[in-house]
């Protein structure tokens, strides 16, 4: 019978069926960071249980680290950040888990370094105490976010108790138009299917527009699955995937790589496999997308107006009113022209080399508008080095952007990079929740990195296509 990648990976990783009816699922790759792991290690210690397969867990530090070059000396000025770092270093060392620390040259956001080091491979189950773990599904893995108790469960048993999700194929047909990026595609999918449309589902992204994407673009699409409610999002492995993985530090080498490719191919969804649901989106109809509200589904095309709450389904109206009030926007107001105070390019959604290139293309030879604080935060040390080798840092600095060190930074404002008061930020990150960027009243407009760079230069939301020569 024709099977999906989800079916095949699920079966290959099933240890047994549990008394509760759930599956005991083996986790092939476990990633940890400093925020959701210390309590898990503590629980393990209290239970007197050892880490079962330390070689299948990798750690990095990303959420709390300062990104200003002169603030990365240990001990960090922020005592809580220092304490979390000390715990991570000690826990990983004691349990034999490799840590990509600041001095490793490989540190970065967990969802950026997994793929770039080749740790993330097709056919795997991948879990991390972080909801954007769906990112890794871009290579054809089953990757999902978990809570801290489940981090403990994996450390102790390399397994999780899971219920198999349903599957929806999300097809992006046709081709994208110039100035429309993977970020616009993922934001538009969420706009169409809703922020809770994916609850209970794994999303298989497919269709010509997806197949043509580079691996970095695919990572952006899968990253935001959870914002549409889907805990899993994946793309079937193909030649793009194999070309991307070849030569990466943790990818198999030589003849082993070729044997891996044939297994990876065999794990892809079979022709004729059936889905619980299929959704179709016309790629050509997507324009640059900007969010105007307090969840990632509240968005419009850049040339459109903030909709009137009367135009939305009745059950969504209270949230729409709440969003308009929080944002201080009016229904019917065009989104273009909205003044911004901060511009942020970075995060696990859009902190990769291709994202920085897209932003630099807009920044080159232009200047950040007066009064706008503009930050470029590479997703990893490797991304930073690659960008510097191309001179992108100089392009940004000449234009008036700050060039930072790798980390999560203003995606969630757990370090020093925060919005102040009611500032509005144009952000390439993934969440516009109230208070997300570090100020309880701060406001976030999500968009592609090129759109962020354009907003930084114009001092307001602007259609990036006007700036693309």
């Amino acid at each position, binding site marked *: 019978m024709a099977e999906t990648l989800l079916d095949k990976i699920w079966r290959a990783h099933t240890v047994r069926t549990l008394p509760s009816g759930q599956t005991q699922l083996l986790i092939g790759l476990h990633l940890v960071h400093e925020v959701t792991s210390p309590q898990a290690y503590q629980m393990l210690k209290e*239970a007197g249980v050892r880490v079962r397969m330390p070689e299948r867990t990798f750690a990095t530090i990303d959420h709390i680290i300062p990104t200003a070059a002169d603030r990365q000396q240990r001990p960090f000025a922020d005592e809580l*950040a220092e304490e979390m770092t000390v715990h991570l270093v000690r826990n990983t060392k004691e349990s034999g888990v490799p840590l990509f620390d600041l001095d490793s040259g490989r540190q970065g956001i967990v969802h950026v370094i997994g793929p770039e080091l080749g740790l993330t491979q097709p056919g795997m189950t991948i879990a991390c105490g972080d*909801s954007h773990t769906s990112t890794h599904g871009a290579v054809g893995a089953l990757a999902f976010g978990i809570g801290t108790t*489940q981090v403990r469960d994996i450390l102790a048993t390399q397994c999780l108790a899971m219920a198999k999700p349903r599957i929806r194929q999300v097809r992006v047909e046709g081709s994208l138009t110039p100035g429309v990026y993977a970020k616009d595609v993922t934001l538009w999918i969420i706009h169409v299917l809703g922020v*809770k449309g994916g609850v209970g589902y794994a999303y298989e992204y497919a269709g010509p527009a997806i197949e043509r994407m580079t691996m970095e673009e695919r990572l952006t699409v899968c990253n935001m699955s959870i914002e549409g409610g889907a805990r899993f999002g994946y793309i079937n492995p193909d030649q793009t995937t194999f070309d991307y993985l070849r030569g990466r530090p943790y990818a198999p080498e030589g003849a082993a790589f070729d044997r891996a490719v044939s297994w990876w191919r065999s794990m892809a969804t079979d022709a004729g496999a059936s889905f619980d649901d299929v959704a179709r989106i016309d790629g050509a109809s997507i324009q640059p997308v900007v969010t105007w509200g307090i969840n990632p589904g509240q968005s419009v095309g850049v040339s459109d107006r903030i909709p009137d709450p009367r135009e939305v389904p009745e059950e969504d109206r209270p949230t729409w009113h*709440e969003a308009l009030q929080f944002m201080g926007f009016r229904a019917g107001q065009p989104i273009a022209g909205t003044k911004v105070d901060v511009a942020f390019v970075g995060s696990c959604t859009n902190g990769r080399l291709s994202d920085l290139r897209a932003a630099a293309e807009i920044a080159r030879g232009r200047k950040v508008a007066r009064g706008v604080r503009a930050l470029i935060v590479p997703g990893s040390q490797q991304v930073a080095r690659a960008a510097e080798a191309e001179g992108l840092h100089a392009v940004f600095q000449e234009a008036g952007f700050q060039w930072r060190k790798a980390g999560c930074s203003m995606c969630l404002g*757990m370090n020093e990079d925060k919005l102040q008061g009611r500032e509005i930020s144009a952000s390439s990150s993934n969440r516009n929740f109230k208070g997300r960027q570090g100020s309880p009243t701060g406001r976030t407009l999500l968009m592609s990195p090129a759109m962020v760079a354009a907003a930084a230069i114009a001092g307001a939301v602007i259609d990036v296509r006007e700036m693309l020569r």
Partner: protein
Amino acid sequence: MRRQIVGRGVPLPGNDIDTDRIIPARYLKSVTFEGLGEHVFGDERKAVPEHPFNRPQFQGASILIAGQNFGCGSSREHAPLALQHWGVAGIVAGSYGEIFFGNCTANGIPCLVAEPSDVDWLLREVERHPGQALELDVERREVRFMGRTIPARIPEGARNQLVTGSWNAMSVLLDAGEAIERTARALPYIAGY
């Protein structure tokens, strides 16, 4: 075991309430889960003094009534724990963010799903009768309040874990013993390509 939970309710209207709102990221700067209860809905309770979690009539409540997609967003387990530390022992909502739902179950907090019209009724009636207890019946999949019985849903796996007291997955998973290593060795990426 969590067969039934009886207690007063606290109504929290609104859809898509994310875990950043339940517990803002700056309160996650800790290596323990201590002291989370006082920061639950920290920012909102400061901004809105009449937030349900501030109102005197809902202090001591243990059953939270919420709307659609409650607990969406970040996987932070700090969110259910902050609610639990405040006093929440069970939740009835229209639907849940999936990771939040799992985190609640892992901490013995039953999350029941009710029809939107029933959730609206509960939000309204709990508001009107803050002193009356609700019965959240996990075993029979229903919620009882003011003489009315409302049908509710919960996935079978979670229900089993809650009613049998086996929501601590670790000990159950450990029982698989060597089967774990056998499954691992059968995977080409672990055995070696």
